[in-house]
């Protein structure tokens, strides 16, 4: 049952990326173009997601356990360190160069766009290299 929820959550997330147009890198880059032709939409996507998820998170976390699994399982890492800043900065450079972050990039595989597929392959090489060199958080 929890696998069905995973599939459904992925589908809903993907539809949200399409409706909000975050699947389109040009729209994301336009958000990052704060000093040029700025499109504030991405901020509204985050606000919309947070309005729904944040209050529900704080309610649900007090439940004894999730409905379909045995325990809650999410990162409680509180470390604020160089790795957090360096990693986020590298991500920011990549995000600003391509306009793609992991969710929209994977979702856009559906459109069979050679550019986004190339990006996703490179991204997975990045994931693996961090694992290989044991640098992951």
């Amino acid at each position, binding site marked *: 049952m*929890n696998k069905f929820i995973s599939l459904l959550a992925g589908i809903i997330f993907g539809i949200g990326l399409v409706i909000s*147009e975050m699947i389109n890198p040009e729209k994301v880059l336009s958000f990052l173009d704060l000093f040029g032709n700025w499109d504030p939409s991405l901020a509204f996507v985050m*606000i919309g997601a947070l*309005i729904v*998820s944040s209050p529900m998170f704080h309610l*649900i976390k007090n439940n004894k356990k999730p*409905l379909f699994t045995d325990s809650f399982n999410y990162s409680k890492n509180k470390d604020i360190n160089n790795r957090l800043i360096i990693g986020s900065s590298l991500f920011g*450079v990549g995000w600003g160069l391509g306009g793609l972050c992991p969710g929209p990039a994977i979702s856009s595989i559906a459109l069979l766009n050679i550019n986004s597929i190339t990006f996703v392959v490179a991204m997975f090489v990045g994931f693996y290299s961090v694992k290989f060199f044991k640098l992951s958080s």
Partner: protein
Amino acid sequence: MNIVNFTPITATVGGMIIGLAVVMFFLFNGRLIGISGIAANALSEKNNRFDNLFFLIGLVIGPIFYTLFTNKEINITISNSLILLIIAGLLVGIGTRISGGCTSGHGISGVGRFSLRSIIATITFMIVGILTVLIKNYI
């Protein structure tokens, strides 16, 4: 600064749908969505492997369902060269694993639970992203 192509309503509605996916995954499966982590672990970790794979499959078929039900075409524009996209992909892959999250994991799930770590990560990648676009477009 000129404000262009601003679509506040579809952005907010789309964001709320994304929020719904986060709530569902948490309520039923007890996990918070962070796509870089799910994707990186799907192929390399045995733990939750099928949950992760099913989520990723869903993420890809979401846009296909959208097109089937609405009959609307999804248009995206990626105007970068392949070399630049490879560099960008590597940086996104490496950066998100070193910092432990991306726009979804830190930006939505982490900020939503008021994690200072995630708030700092989100501010960092936003500022660096804005500076990168500034340098790329204007210098």
